[in-house]
């Protein structure tokens, strides 16, 4: 016992000088008669490896661990050897052939069978470890697969969720090539998973639910009879409810849609606002799946009558999407939508949706032009570019259908839009390129199937919870953005051309027309024709632009986009230490980041002075510095060229890990990001010739 504790303390000292004193005790520890000491020593080897790779390998510890792993009577020692070896070998594998071959041997049949046969001796945590290893093992014949599954079947009844999930992962991977058995596995694991969901703490059930979510998404059919398990309970945390709502949406089919939608409607009436919103969206998604649309539309229209503003807002957006997909329902919807007072709707998205409907169905809605007109009167109070854009489009549509009534409104709208154009060109341009995703949910499934497969391969890892593949976590966002663009291009070309019309009008063609419409209020039919012919021209131009630039650059984009002026720093700034301290205390941290330094930079940083001179060349001054290798600490400051606004920086550099931590505080928060970039680029140039 004491030998073990001593050994652990010794290994935990992360000091390179002591390494030589470690080798002896570790060697003895691995051969100790007490299993506790061997257990500690196995992990100790790993610690040694992290301090000094060469010492560890020279002393031939990995080989000793391997021997111990295959022969030690104590299961925990075996487990520790296994985890230590896995880590050492995977780190070594890149550099040495031998290590990667050793790693292969872990997956050989004898080793796997040896571990599997001792499964019951292992602690629950070690069982997870072994199961993870077995997942990587590829059985040579199908009888082996069944042997393994029979051996491990009772693991599914384990109380520890981690063990159960690891087992499930193994089963699913093993049977991937055997479709019918794979289905049986799904059936088999359903009950244990549901038990786990309801037996643990909310956090545990969240982890299990995330996995269940993945499975449901893969095979919604199999779970469609269990939909009642995914009903939310009122005291569950938001994150659990959200997952459940998504699953309910996924399992909906002909037979259960009615009940699911009924349940969802109950949530919509709930006091919990985020959940109410989510559930209305879920109803919409189910509607887009084409089951029982009739009933759903009725429900949605009931929502509109509830007169809770957030319910109305969400529902409007949905109704709009539904109308795009099922135009046949327009009559029912329009009747209800017409009754909604625009004053009750504050959210831009909902307002835009309402305006869209007003424009699209203006021929059926009696007072559409007048509602639009009153909205235009309040143009200045409307800050969302999306709403303004929709308003313009809607007025135009309305004008084509009912010219006499809309003429005045159109004139006013175009005038307002033109004034607006100068302030909003960037955001409006962006809107034109990428209009709000309309009815995207219809297409959403196609994009993800590849990612889903990736996540499935990483079952029982964090990827499932984040719903992202491990390597995809960064690239995914870019990917999504691109796909969204493509999709929108395919989706509503007509819609977009309409919306492009008035905007392009604003930029290049509209000036004369605006004059015309405002001068002659009592406009004649010719005036109307002029307006009609006008928008077709830019629309044509813009479709050309799509061909040219794949829709990414449009005529509008050619107008110069004002970018913030580059940040200039005062080369001769001055600040006394007292003021610095005072400011440092007062200001909040604007940004805090961690960079890695270039190797040259690390080499050059033998003394703090070198860095100081370098940073001074970039107009960043040092007020205090200190520290010894490998840790240095600097306080920098800088001043803007024209103003007296200052930036304060605390920079901690560790040369051994070539990492620097940077905290930036600024008088003017808005420029702190620009400064941070500047600082980083200055730092990264350090040490370069």
């Amino acid at each position, binding site marked *: 016992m004491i030998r073990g504790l001593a050994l652990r303390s010794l290994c935990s000292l992360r000091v390179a000088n002591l390494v030589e004193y470690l080798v002896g005790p570790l060697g003895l520890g691995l051969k100790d008669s007490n299993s506790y000491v061997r257990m500690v020593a196995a*992990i100790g080897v790993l610690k040694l490896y992290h301090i000094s790779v060469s010492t560890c390998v020279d002393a031939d510890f990995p080989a000793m661990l391997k021997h111990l792993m295959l022969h030690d009577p104590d299961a925990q020692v075996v487990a520790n050897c296994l985890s230590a070896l896995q880590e050492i070998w995977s780190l070594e594998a890149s550099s040495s052939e031998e290590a990667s071959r050793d790693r292969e041997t872990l997956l050989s049949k004898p080793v796997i069978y040896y571990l599997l046969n001792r499964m019951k001796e292992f602690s629950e945590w070690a069982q997870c470890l072994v199961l993870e290893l077995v997942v990587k093992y590829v059985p040579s014949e199908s009888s082996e697969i069944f042997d393994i599954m029979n051996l491990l079947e009772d693991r599914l009844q384990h109380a520890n969720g981690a063990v159960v999930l690891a087992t499930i992962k193994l089963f699913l991977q093993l049977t991937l090539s055997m479709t019918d058995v794979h289905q049986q596995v799904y059936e088999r694991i359903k009950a244990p998973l549901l038990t786990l969901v309801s037996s*643990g*703490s*909310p956090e545990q059930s969240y982890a299990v639910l995330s996995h269940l979510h993945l499975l449901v998404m893969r095979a919604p059919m199999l779970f469609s009879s269990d939909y009642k398990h995914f009903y939310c309970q009122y005291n569950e945390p*938001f994150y659990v409810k959200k997952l459940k709502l998504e699953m309910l949406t996924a399992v909906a089919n002909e037979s259960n849609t009615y009940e699911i939608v009924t349940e969802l409607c109950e949530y919509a009436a709930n006091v919990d606002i985020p959940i109410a919103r989510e559930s209305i969206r879920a109803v919409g998604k189910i509607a887009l799946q084409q089951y029982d649309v009739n009933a759903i539309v009725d429900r949605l229209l009931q929502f509109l009558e*509830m007169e809770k503003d957030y319910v109305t807002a969400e529902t409007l957006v949905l109704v709009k999407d539904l109308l795009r997909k099922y135009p046949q329902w327009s009559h029912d919807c329009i009747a209800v939508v017409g009754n909604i007072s625009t004053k009750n709707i504050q959210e831009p998205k909902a307002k835009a949706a309402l305006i869209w409907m007003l424009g699209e169905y203006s021929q059926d809605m009696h007072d559409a032009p007048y509602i639009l007109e009153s909205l235009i009167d309040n143009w200045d109070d409307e800050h969302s570019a999306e709403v303004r854009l929709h308003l313009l489009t809607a007025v135009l549509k309305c004008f084509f259908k009912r010219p006499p009534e809309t003429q005045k409104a159109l004139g006013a709208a175009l005038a307002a839009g033109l004034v607006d154009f100068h302030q909003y060109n960037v955001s409006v341009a962006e809107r034109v390129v990428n209009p709000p995703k309309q009815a995207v949910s219809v297409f959403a499934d196609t994009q993800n199937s590849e990612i889903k497969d990736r996540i499935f391969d990483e079952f029982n890892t964090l990827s499932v919870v984040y719903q992202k593949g491990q390597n995809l976590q960064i690239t995914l966002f870019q990917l999504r953005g691109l796909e969204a663009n493509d999709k929108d291009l395919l989706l509503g070309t007509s819609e977009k051309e309409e919306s492009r019309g008035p905007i392009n009008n604003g930029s290049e063609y509209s000036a004369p027309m605006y004059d015309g419409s405002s001068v002659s209020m009592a406009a004649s039919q010719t005036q109307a024709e002029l307006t009609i012919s006008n928008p077709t021209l830019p629309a044509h131009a813009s479709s050309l632009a799509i061909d040219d630039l794949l829709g990414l650059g449009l005529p509008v984009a050619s107008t110069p986009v004002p970018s913030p002026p580059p940040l200039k720093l005062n080369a001769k700034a001055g600040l006394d230490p007292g003021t610095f301290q005072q400011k440092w205390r007062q200001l909040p941290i604007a940004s805090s980041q961690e960079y890695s330094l270039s190797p040259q930079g690390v080499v050059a940083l033998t003394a703090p002075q070198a860095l100081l001179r370098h940073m001074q060349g970039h107009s960043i001054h040092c007020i205090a510095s200190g520290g010894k290798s490998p840790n240095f600490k600097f306080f920098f400051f800088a001043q803007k060229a024209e103003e007296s606004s200052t930036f304060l920086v605390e920079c901690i550099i560790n040369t051994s890990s070539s990492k620097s931590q940077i905290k930036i505080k600024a008088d003017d928060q808005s420029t702190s990001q620009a400064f941070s970039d500047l600082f980083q680029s200055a730092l990264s140039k350090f040490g370069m010739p």
Partner: protein
Amino acid sequence: MISQFFVLSQRGDNIVFRDYRGEVQKGSAEIFFRKVKFWKEDGEGEAPPVFNVDGVNYFHVKVAGLLFVATTRVNVSPSLVLELLQRIARVSKDYLGVLNEDSLRKNFVLVYELLDEVIDFGYVQTTSTEVLKSCVFNEPIVVDAARLPPLGPASIFMQGTKRMPGTAVTKSVIANEPGGRTREEIFVDIIEKISVTFSSSGYILTSEIDGTIQMKSYLTGNPEIRLALNDDLSIGRGGRSIYDYSGSSGSGAVILDDCNFHESVHLDSFDVDRTLTLVPSDGEFSVMNYRMTQEFKPPFRINALIEEAGTLKAEVILKVRAEFPSSVTANTVQVQIPLPTYTTRVSFELEPGAVGQTTDFKETNKRLEWGLKKIVGGSEHTLRARLTFSQESHGNITREAGPVSMTFTIPMYNASRLQVKYLQIAKKSKTHNPYRWVRYVTQANSYVARI
């Protein structure tokens, strides 16, 4: 592989902090707490138990108002880490007797000792209270359970099952009795959490029982124990649909949908005579978790009625009927109903002669609360409340209010009729029989009636 483990108080103070691998920067606790605290402001509700900031994965569980957090940079199994955190909390409770901020602070040496043994260099070693016993040398400093700070209503849910009365359960596994000899006893709790949803017309829409058999053993010498359950117990429902209510109506066999067992349980004779054989390890653990969706008789019937009474007034009538034998009493019953947002004032009228009942109207979340200390089986209680509105209702008040939710605890009652027939301890002590306690408790998990 876990990089760091720490425990934060509700205010974000570091109570315990252990760095195992030195891969994650020191300020992680602060980053974590900030993120959790401000999660709500992004309109996302509560922070999920797992999230990633700058490449560091943060896991947390809430236990007894404390945040148990682990960090790692590796793509690990989330349920493994969350399960581990829960287990660390349980082990700490086993050793400290009571788990709260105070007890952790007073016993931090002991806790660090435990943490060193539970995790070594990021790898889980053991979480068995029994095994850890040999590695721990500090005596726990006992914190008086009576001085527990009152926990908010939210923490009752967080804590789940373990809020049992009785001092013995809050005893540390290694604390010595003043007399020098530990009392031989074993506690078996059958805890059932029931979830029922009634439709507005009083039908049961969904019902589920999540049960556990908890065991806490203070027996010396680790004798083998045999635990016998109902003979008519059966598991799994074959080909039948889970929600088939037509079959077993009320009486007959107890059918569990599924169950799982602790690793120390031997199931050799379970198929034959429904007995579990196990060698209980020290500390608290759940022998068996089970789930049941078989039809059962709900302990309470809730009736809620809202009627308009004039333009700016309405009346709410809540009726609760206890449908269990009069020998059983339900404790700490709490009935809640959210009211329309434009409710300004509520006046209550309790039935004559009501004792131990409280009523309250929470202005902030517009919620009516009705607390009853006790409800005796077979009795019925009514509450009338008059609401005053600030504006005219839109015609349909029932859509603006509700649903009614209810929480309660019923000792010595279990809805599933699962029973421990006998508890046999293999090693008979010569001098005396160990104390054996078997208790049944039913709690409300989600007990909701729609209106």
